[in-house]
């Protein structure tokens, strides 16, 4: 008897999580623009509230349109389930708030999106959660930074903006030896380019605003659990393995070892912090997810052309992209990212800050804005935008200088993109 086959990525991207609407037959995912759901009777209501029956109660906790996106992302990532959130930042906060209390500690890559750095370095510190930032390329640093109260190791699959490739298998091994999970931000790679769970990560999230949505129309996040981390075997996660007075004294790991994290994240995190995703947002992001497998190869193909163009341009001092042989993570990228190292990269323009300013203001197709992963090509100067709160020392740790320019390559004709870049680079050197 033949081994049965799972549906392919492309099929899941279009179908997972949605059955044609039972009421209308609608093939597209309906937008359930409702706050709440009528109970059949009082008994049904009580059973829904007490997790004895499956279903929806209130759209802050769950919503049928949002649930389609959640299940689809879990399917694409190979997780047990997912929770969609108001933003990628909300997803990161939800993960941390579900896992730990004041007095806990996080070990994080220092190469992070500026917003994530702010949350960890300043905001969570006010609530008693401290973070040690380390060089993600140093496995010794990961190991040395772990303390008895460490509850999480965290990094981006492709560091922002230096594009450090996170050595997920090695960092996961360090995390698991310490009996803590590894959380990764997979925004830059999407499940099309990299499936972190297959390499040992335990939890992941995306800023769905970026490549998942793909069209720059909606802000959202999604947090996915692999279901593989054994909370019982670690004695470090009381939020998941001890009775929670805030929800009928539920011991979430006792309810389900594989679902414990998501149970608490939904039943406490969405309920109390309330950073849920709106159904219209879920619908818009789903439109992007349905073509992720078509868009990502084109993003990567165009990026490679632009990278090659810039690497040989007289006005460019350096291009930072993991597929280039001089990138420190070139070999790792070949192993972990065989389909491509994404469509966001940095380069150093000759002439420093003044040249950078002229370059950006001379572009016609690239849009100067604070986003990546759009169908349209984007440009950003990190030192004055996403990373502007970071000290010079922290900027250096993150691999940024005043002359660093970040590009996000969209789906335009790549020849038009290189023409645009060439014109702006020439202008910058006058």
């Amino acid at each position, binding site marked *: *008897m033949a*081994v*049965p*086959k*799972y*549906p392919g990525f492309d*099929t*899941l991207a279009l*179908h*997972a*999580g*949605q*059955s044609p609407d039972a009421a209308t037959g609608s093939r597209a995912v309906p937008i359930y623009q409702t706050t709440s759901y009528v109970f059949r009777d009082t008994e049904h209501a009580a*059973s829904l509230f*007490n*997790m*004895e*029956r*499956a*279903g*929806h109660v209130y759209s802050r906790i*769950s*919503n*049928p349109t*949002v*649930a*389609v996106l*959640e*299940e689809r992302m*879990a*399917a694409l990532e*190979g*997780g*047990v*389930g*997912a*929770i*969609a959130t108001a933003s990628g930042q909300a997803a990161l906060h939800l993960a941390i708030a579900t896992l730990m209390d004041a007095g806990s500690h996080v070990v994080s890559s220092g190469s992070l999106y500026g917003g994530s750095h702010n949350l960890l370095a300043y905001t969570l510190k006010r609530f008693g959660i401290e973070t040690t930032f380390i060089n993600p390329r140093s496995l010794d640093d990961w190991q040395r930074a772990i303390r008895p109260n460490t509850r999480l190791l965290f990094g981006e699959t492709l560091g922002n903006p230096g594009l450090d490739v996170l050595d997920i298998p090695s960092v996961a091994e360090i995390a698991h030896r310490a009996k803590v999970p590894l959380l990764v931000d997979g925004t830059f790679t999407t499940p099309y380019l990299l499936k972190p769970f297959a390499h040992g990560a335990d939890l992941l999230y995306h800023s769905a605003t970026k490549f998942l949505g793909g069209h720059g129309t909606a802000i959202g996040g999604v947090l996915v659990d*692999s*279901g*593989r981390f*054994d909370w*019982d075997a670690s004695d470090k996660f009381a939020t998941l393995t001890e*009775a929670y007075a805030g929800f*009928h*004294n*539920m*011991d979430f790991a*006792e*309810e*389900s*070892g*594989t*679902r414990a994290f*998501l149970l608490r994240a*939904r039943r406490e995190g969405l309920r109390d912090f309330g950073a849920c995703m709106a159904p219209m947002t879920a619908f818009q992001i789903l439109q992007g997810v349905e073509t992720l497998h078509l868009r990502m190869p084109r993003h990567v193909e165009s990026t490679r052309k632009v990278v090659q163009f810039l690497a040989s341009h007289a006005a460019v001092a350096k291009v930072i992209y993991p597929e280039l042989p001089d990138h420190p993570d070139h070999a790792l990228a070949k192993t972990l990212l065989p389909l491509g190292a994404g469509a966001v990269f940095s380069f150093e323009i000759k002439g420093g800050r003044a040249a950078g300013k002229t370059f950006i203001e001379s572009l016609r197709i690239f849009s100067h804005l604070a986003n990546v992963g759009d169908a349209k090509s984007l440009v950003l100067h990190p030192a004055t935008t996403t990373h502007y709160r970071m000290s010079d020392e922290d900027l250096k740790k993150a691999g940024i200088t005043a002359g660093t320019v970040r590009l996000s390559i969209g789906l335009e004709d790549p020849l038009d993109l290189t023409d645009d870049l060439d014109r702006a680079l020439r202008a910058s050197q006058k």
Partner: protein
Amino acid sequence: MNLQVDARAVFAYTANHELDASKRTVLFIHGAGLDHSWFGLQSRYFGYHGWNVLALDLPGHGRSAGPALQTVPAMADWLLRALDAAKVASAALVGHSMGTLIALDCAARHAARVERIALIATAYPMKVGEAFLEAARRNEYSAFDMHTIWGHAPQVPLGANPNPGMWMYGDTQARLERLAPGVLHADLKASSDYRFPGGVKCPTLFILGRRDMMTPPRAAKALQEQIPGARSVVIDYSGHSLMAEAPDAVLDALIDFLR
């Protein structure tokens, strides 16, 4: 609830309630390679609606210490020792897949301890294909793939999960990956080798999924004919994992049966 059976740790989910001698008891028995939480919604309901609930992790599964037991009669005998440990004289048994065979064997050989049985996704004989058995014997991941894909209705990967935000395939894989080597094979072989002695006389309910690829309703027909007065509920859209695929329909059938 933590019990000791044969000097080994055993976990029984009780829906966060102490056992109460004045209440009736319903005992949930999971299938091959799984654990008590497979009955999550249903066991929780009964725990909050006037029943003592014991959703056991069989030896070597979930939170119960190994090794796994090798035959269905051994599992049935162990189950009675677990009831003894919990100081429960008799119970209604709800089994799923391999768990249905354990319930059947208990009802056949220990009738005084079994008030009634509900058999969710059952067949007799429960013959397991040689390729599946062999993959499990070799502890190959393809055994988990077969368990996952054949364990759900064909439309599951392309449809919506009744439990918002959850991915049934992923949840099944994650559970199976937690098993110690050899446990799945022991379960599958025990199911495949089981010989039903007959003689069940207690009230019996079959809950079957029309799209079940492992234990299709036709494979339960001969067994139904051997149990006088057995009733049957067939859920049209469900596959083998009825508690996840059709949680409300299964719960409604159990409420009606255990009423």
